[in-house]
């Protein structure tokens, strides 16, 4: 709803909007700035900004003292793996729900979403024991499975809302031309639904990347992703502000950049199709 306004009002609202946005962003900015200061400068009082001692040493230090590339790679494998596996399972389900809805489809969707309401802590011990029995503790495949199941309801929901907007006539036309079910999904539905699938993928990669409960409970060292890395980092070194900030920045930077590039699709996907 763009409306004509006076230039003076535009200046005022611009100033107000930018102030609010900067306040919201400030903690992230402050963390990034702190990560480039020396430890002494990071805790100086009053806080130093222009006169601070700038350095790259914190990054070098975190890099040399921890196995960042391994944590990073684990995060990539786990978040991407769980999302792709989730998509492979959810696409047929969402297709069926959107195009062959039964009487129970709505209840089924609600039930799926309600499984996400079960607090993770409540089932922590049994799941830990199950994973231990199955030899999945501290393995990437174990975390891929856990995070896939954790996000599956969200994936099904998002895909469902996208698929529902595709006119059924297109599919019927394909069927008339003799396309089988698999071909119909692969060559007709998937290309049309690609933007929806892409934003589902993005959101779930971000959710999996930032997941910090199961990743900590179910890993020790080998399969630990960045969220576990940062949890272990902040425990013993809580007072090293600059190094903690550098490690934190390294943990969130990949997803922050990915998120910024894709924020339009993300927000659209997050509304579950209920907000146009």
């Amino acid at each position, binding site marked *: *709803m763009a*409306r004509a306004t006076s230039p003076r009002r*535009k200046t005022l609202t*611009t100033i*107000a*909007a*930018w102030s609010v*946005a900067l306040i*919201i*962003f400030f*903690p992230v900015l*402050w*963390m990034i700035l702190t990560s480039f200061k020396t430890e002494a400068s*990071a*805790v100086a*009082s*009053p806080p130093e900004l222009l006169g601070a001692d700038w350095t790259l040493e914190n990054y070098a230090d975190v890099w040399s003292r921890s196995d960042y590339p391994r944590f990073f790679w684990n995060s990539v494998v786990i978040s991407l793996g769980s999302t792709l596996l989730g998509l492979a399972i*959810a696409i*047929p389900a969402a297709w*069926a729900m959107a195009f*062959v809805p*039964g009487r129970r489809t*709505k209840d089924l969707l*609600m039930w*799926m979403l309600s*499984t996400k*309401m*079960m*607090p993770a*802590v*409540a*089932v*922590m*011990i*049994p799941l830990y024991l199950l994973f231990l029995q199955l030899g999945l503790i501290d393995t990437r495949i174990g975390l891929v499975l856990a995070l896939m199941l954790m996000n*599956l309801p969200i994936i099904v929901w998002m895909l469902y*809302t996208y698929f529902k907007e595709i006119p059924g006539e297109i599919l*019927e036309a394909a069927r008339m031309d003799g396309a089988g*079910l698999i071909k119909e999904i692969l060559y007709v539905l998937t290309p049309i639904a690609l933007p929806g699938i892409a934003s589902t993928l993005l959101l779930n990669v*971000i959710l999996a990347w*930032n*997941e*910090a*409960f199961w990743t900590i409970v179910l890993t020790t060292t080998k399969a630990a992703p960045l*969220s576990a890395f*940062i*949890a272990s980092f*902040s425990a013993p070194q809580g007072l090293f502000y600059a190094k903690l*900030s550098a490690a*934190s920045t390294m943990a*969130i930077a990949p997803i*922050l950049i990915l998120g910024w590039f894709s*924020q339009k699709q993300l927000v*659209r996907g*997050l*509304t*579950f199709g*209920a*907000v*146009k």
Partner: protein
Amino acid sequence: MSTQSSRLAARVMVAPSVVLLFIWMAVPLAMTLYYSFRLYRLLSPDRTGWVGFTNYLWFFNSPDFWLALWNTLALVGGVLVITVVLGILIALLIDQPVKGQGMLRILVIAPFFVMPPVAASIWENLFMHPQNGLFAAIARGFGAQPILFLEEYPLLSVIGIVSWEWLPFAALILLTSLQSLSSEQLEAAEMDGASALSRLRYIILPHMTRAITVVILIQTIFLLGIFGEIFTTTQGGPGSASTTLPYMIFKQAIAAKDIGRAAAGGIIAVILANIVAYFLMRGIGRHLDA
């Protein structure tokens, strides 16, 4: 095309998701239910047996439980109120014709991409720390005593941190909804002499109802299980001042090593989540299914 066979195909395609989710939910839940009626302490593994509702009664008789229940609801409710109200205000502000709207969105969405342990540690160390935090420095600059956020206002501090994490989500979804509102309608109302406040009350807010319900539903799902932020900052303390139900269960399992009690707490948490879910789904189901 025969409906019969396509229905069958549809069932086959839905089945993997349903079966997997059912196993993911039912097996741990059944195990939790089993343990909740058992004596099972990791520190005395030899003593086991059925104990009936003893584990449940321990919770109901513990004053900490009622505090934790209250804290859980206060955390969820507090964050919902803050993010929805501020989210509406921010959406209204950004929706105005301002310079650099794209950049504004990028700044506002940033907290959503920050993982909970990092968000909690930024706030705990860089801002709320009574010695080295920025808030303390500001307070000293005004000649005031630094506020002991995590010691004196632990629950409020956690609510603040979690609200910061979820504000972008609320603001951007509400903004999306606002941008689909036709400007003609608003201009017509303005010409008819409707004040800004009554335009908000009778046109803008009703238009956003659906977006607000989506925000509430999605956030509640995630907020009911809030754990990492408390673990990183207050550890549920001081005392039990910021212990929520999930955190109380965690303490029973990890600190007290009492699996039976933790399991009973888990079942109570699941029941609580179901009560909340029931009311939410009833109020919201029709909005979601477009």
